[in-house]
């Protein structure tokens, strides 16, 4: 499968589906992307075509992983598919101030 995550400086861009079919691959790539050098990661989700529960879990996992490393993860752009899910679940704070959403 072709690489879905592109890391450039602080920017982490995910392209294509974020669903149960791609979740396993995404998991490794996203986590690796976060562990990389920079402290703040800007997550660009503007090219995500589809998102389901599995995709959402990856997002939550990524946030938790970043927090565990003491880094910030900020969603700076979201496609309509991503926005729809975040709005449905009232998770819009994810895009605004991820640091405020501490782990339970």
């Amino acid at each position, binding site marked *: 499968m072709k690489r879905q995550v592109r890391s450039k400086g602080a920017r982490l861009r995910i392209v294509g589906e974020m669903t*149960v079919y791609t*979740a*396993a691959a*995404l*998991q490794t790539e996203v*986590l690796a992307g976060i562990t990389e050098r920079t402290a703040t990661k800007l997550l660009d989700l503007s090219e995500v075509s589809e998102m*389901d*529960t*599995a995709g*959402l*879990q*990856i997002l*939550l*996992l990524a946030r*938790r*992983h970043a927090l*565990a490393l003491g880094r910030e993860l900020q969603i700076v752009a979201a496609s309509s598919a991503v926005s729809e*899910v975040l709005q*449905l*679940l*009232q*998770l819009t704070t994810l895009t605004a101030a991820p640091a405020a959403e501490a782990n*339970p």
Partner: protein
Amino acid sequence: MNLDEALPGFIAESADLLREMEAALLECTAGSVTPETINLIFRSAHTIKGSAGLFGLDDIVAFVHVVETVLDGVRLNRTAMSEELIALLLSCKDHIQSLVASVGTAAPPDSTLVTRGEELLAALRQVSAIEAAGPTDATAGSPEHPGNAIGTRPSTSAQTTTDWQVLVRFSPTVLTAGMDPLGFIRYLRTFCELRRVEVLEDTLPGPESFNAETCYLGFHMDLRTSAPRSRIEGAFEFVREDCTLQITELHAEPHRDAQIPAGPSSPPPTQARPKREGAPEANVLSRSIRVDAGKLDYLITRIGELIIAAAGVSLLARRGGNSELEERTSTLAALVEQVREGALQLRMVKIGGTFDRFKRVVHDVSRELGKEISLALRGEDTELDKTVVEQIGDPLTHLVRNAIDHGIEPAEVRRARGKPAGGTITLNAFHDSGSIVIEVRDDGGGLRREKILAKALEKGLIQEDRALTDPEIFNLVFEPGFSTADSVTNLSGRGVGMDVVKRNITALRGTVGINSVAGEGTTVTVRLPLTLAIINGFQVAVGKTSFVLPLESIEECIEFSAENGHDFTNLRGHVLPFVRLRELVGTKEPAARRPSIVVVKHAGERAGIVVDALLGEFQTVIKPLGKMFRKVDYVSGSSILGTGEVALILDVPALVQQAIVRARNHAAA
């Protein structure tokens, strides 16, 4: 959670809710019956019922349920919020309060409480019965104008919706089975309003054990919908085997066509912990914590001791001449002062809470007497010591009742005098030179000077030949055994008179005064010290004895001078009467060569106190006086100095009074 441990929390929460409920009910009497107010009352009742159910307090659940049913009728505009209904609901609120209180004592329910509950239930059921019959009669009577039914507003405002709390967790395999939990939520949205959604990610594992194809999430949703429970359940039909689903009714607004149960028959919401509604507000409130008052008092006494100890240390440092030590102790003293202020601040509460109680008093009493009276509140944010607040309630209640009973005239008399038929009682609070002033004002007929004089003569309180000023005459009402009431009503005139009020206020180191203008009304002014524990004092001396004056009451200190042998001096063109502390104390020590006058102020009056020496500011921890000193009328308390010596705290109001009286007698003579 241990329920027994949580019980005090329930009692405290209920007290808060009942207070809110009462406030809202009283708002309704003021003529503002808004849907928000009704909802607030309903929510209070509902939350109490929910919590009581959690503790298995069936009595409370059963009673509140009936109250709730009636309130629901009001909410759906089926029942009008009449004066009678408000009075009934207020009684119900009192009853719930008693029920909750009896939970705290763990005593068996007493029979009067049970009887009272039954009476109220009967009255409530009657209201429900009327309301059940109401709409049908109205529509039958005027079929062509169904919208004109009495007490019914257009039904567009009445939503027949229910709030639900849905808690759902999916089995780990649901994703691989080809189902997406988000889909179910999207489906719910087609017939529900998703008021709140929370993603439960507590079971989400760390990166090591995370499996991308396992479902870890759960969802917690608050829904509002007109659809029945079965439809919500139906939404999850496809994953019925693969999820745990919990649906709880948050608050029901029963369907219009549903029969209103007359008794407690709906299932209590015990499936899940009933959420307190209005979560955002609750979050704001949770920034404050409840602390046991005993702990706070302990802290204050310890700080009192700390101040005395610190004063001792700095005294030693000064004597020892160790400048470094002196510097450190002054830092310490500054910190101690800050701690003291912080600790006292903890005890400060707004007087608004006490004032709000009087809305109820005014409502009940004016109903009882058939007088139309409104209550105006001012300065509710004024803060004062918790202990003072607790102890001022009873005297104030008496003053308010008195004002309603004796102050405000009957409506006919008021109209004849060209006043509005409805009377007004005003409660006002403000800070004034180290005291808090609370005024109870009525716009009634005022005190009858002649009647008071006659009564005072009859009781032998005054001699016939004495010329008294108006304030002096008015203040006679505070004398023991004085009452001019023509008729003994249910409210006052039972022997518990103004003298008790005065005694209670004096016990708080406060003073009370009364003034009145015939035909315009009466104002009772209560002055209380801001705190009962620690004050900023100013130390003075006569001979070798130290005295303390409250710093807030001091205006200035001037060099001693007297108008050739009289007991007053000229203060920038004004006469300033003074008292010589030396004479009061009766010391035999030789007089100082350069005495000073401390100018003090109380209740707008100024007077001087002649002392031998000014010693400066001093943190004063007030200690009560021993019985021996009770009769000494110029001393209000004692304090311990850094040296361990005792200093007496001078009673400024008494001294001011004494100086003025003496100056006047002198002038008269």
